[in-house]
């Protein structure tokens, strides 16, 4: 009898790991990813802490393995629309959105994008740069095919004309695919809290107040500035950079933010601060924090090096507000250094907000489709927080990665949970749930 297949929702590192674990055991995997390419958040990062490995360099081989593995079927630019049945026998309807490009013919050469006249803010670059209406989401995209963003497409037909492989098909229709799987893994990851909800920090009004994810794109060689860290407002090199922690995290106000600690922001702030100093060795870098949470392997040591070797200033203070000088665009930060107890202000060229990590904004809809429970923040509830941490509240549906909440978070944890969920799936297949 053929082994039941597995549906994995979410093509980030966690979903990819689960796919590879299961595929290598001879189990058929359908990896459904909403965006045009797998890779997820890790593809957007420049380097990962604390080893400072190039993020895409360690991710891309796994992405390629997924693409080439005979047991993995990638369904990118697709969404799960309906799930019926129970563990061992789920019937899933997946909607494959039309990319208006034939995946079997496209060679990923990119000539179409060169000719496309329509420019749109690039979501992969956190809207700091532009892409065309027909686009490759990022250079290492898997599958390496372009996608047409029909909403912004001018329907000029140029892409169709110049495509050597005749892969463009502007009449392509959405496809409904029915899958029969024995179990499901949800690995949808996270979004960032929108700091414009805190108006006094100026995000959205002041161009040089950015989120940490936007900073990653500026630091990344494949990003909108080719890896040159410059101020979004005037393109000048920033000589003073501030990081503000706990933006939207540890917030008990109720009408804004979330009460939990996102658990990785202290880590990524120190990592980014070190990267900034590497890019601009004479930059003055300060991290404004309430507590410094440096737990786990290698992290406290990394933090110590950040202080001593990289000269990063750590100021225990949660800043009150940021004000921009209308002429110089210099940002004035008001804070009280709780160590020296003096209220002061300091000017910075660039301010990075370490925003909270929140569940993907559409995960609540997906949870409804799957019939699984979410908690008050939108994170997936484990059926047993201690004993069954990767099981959702529906037998046969498992989860891994940040969609389960902030107790996980950095890359090794997401990989671990992907493997854990895969292992649970293997039990289903072996007949024991």
């Amino acid at each position, binding site marked *: 009898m053929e082994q039941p297949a597995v549906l994995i929702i979410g093509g980030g590192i966690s979903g990819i790991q689960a796919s590879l674990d299961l595929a290598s055991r001879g189990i058929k995997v359908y990896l459904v990813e909403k965006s045009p390419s797998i890779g997820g958040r890790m593809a957007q990062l420049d380097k990962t802490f604390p080893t400072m490995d190039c993020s895409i360099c360690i991710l891309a081989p796994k992405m390629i393995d997924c693409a080439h593995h005979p047991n993995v079927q990638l369904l990118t630019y697709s969404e799960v629309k309906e799930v019926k049945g129970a563990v061992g026998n789920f019937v899933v309807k997946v909607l494959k959105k039309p990319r208006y490009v034939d995946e079997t013919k496209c060679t990923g050469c990119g000539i179409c994008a060169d000719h496309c006249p329509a420019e749109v803010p690039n979501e992969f670059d956190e809207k700091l740069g532009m892409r065309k209406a027909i686009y490759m989401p990022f250079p290492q995209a898997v599958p390496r095919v372009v996608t047409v963003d029909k909403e912004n497409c001018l329907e000029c037909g140029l892409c169709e004309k110049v495509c050597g492989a005749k892969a463009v098909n502007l009449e392509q229709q959405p496809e409904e695919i029915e899958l029969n799987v024995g179990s499901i893994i949800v690995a949808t990851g996270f979004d960032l809290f929108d700091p414009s909800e805190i108006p006094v920090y100026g995000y959205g009004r002041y161009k040089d107040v950015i989120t940490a994810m936007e900073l990653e794109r500026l630091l990344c060689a494949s990003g909108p500035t080719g890896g040159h860290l410059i101020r979004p407002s005037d393109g000048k090199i920033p000589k003073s950079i501030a990081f503000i922690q706990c933006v939207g995290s540890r917030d008990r106000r109720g009408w804004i933010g979330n009460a939990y600690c996102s658990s990785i922001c202290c880590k990524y702030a120190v990592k980014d601060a070190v990267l900034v100093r590497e890019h601009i060795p004479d930059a003055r870098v300060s991290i404004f924090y*309430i507590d410094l949470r440096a737990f786990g392997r290698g992290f406290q040591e990394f933090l110590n090096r950040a202080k001593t070797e990289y000269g990063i200033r750590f100021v225990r203070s949660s800043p009150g507000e940021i004000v921009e000088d209308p002429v110089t665009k210099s940002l004035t930060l008001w804070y009280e250094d*709780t160590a020296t107890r003096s209220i002061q202000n300091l000017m910075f060229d660039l301010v990075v907000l370490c925003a909270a990590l929140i569940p993907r904004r559409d995960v609540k809809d997906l949870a409804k489709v799957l019939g699984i429970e979410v908690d008050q923040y939108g994170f997936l509830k484990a059926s047993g927080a201690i004993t069954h941490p990767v099981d959702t509240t529906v037998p046969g549906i498992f989860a891994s990665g940040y969609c389960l909440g902030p107790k996980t978070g950095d890359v090794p944890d997401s990989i671990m949970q992907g493997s854990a969920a895969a292992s649970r799936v293997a039990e289903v297949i072996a007949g024991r749930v």
Partner: protein
Amino acid sequence: MSSLDSDFMHEVANTPRGRGVLTCIQCGRCSSSCPVARLTTEHNPRRLMEMIILGLRSEILPTQLPWYCLSCFTCLDRCPQGGDVGEAMFAIRNLAVREGNVPEGIVIQARSLIDTGRVVNPTRMALLEREKLGLDKGPSTATEDVQKILKRTKLDKKIGRR
């Protein structure tokens, strides 16, 4: 060196509006936001919370410290612990008042309230003007009722009126 009153933090926490002092994590966002803290080093909401937590009762209640606050609620709105910390300012002032520490400007308002039911009253000129304009005399004050209420809550005793 003043003596530390280890019960003070709980005294404040058990005063109405004072609960927030128990949740203060001394992050400094309140002091970074306070408009008055930028004008004078005398006023610093974070430091005031710190002093309460440490038990420096005698350095707060009889002094000017409780009376710099604008009650603008900026600190309260920005406090990551839910804002009750800003409310504690009112608790401190209530306690200070009971020890006879009230600025004259507020005593005047309180006296007017007790005597007339309002903190600000229209002058005779103002009343005449209102009549001329066809406006009523303004809502009649219920002085008697106010006095009954304030007698019950013992306001005049609390502000130490003779």
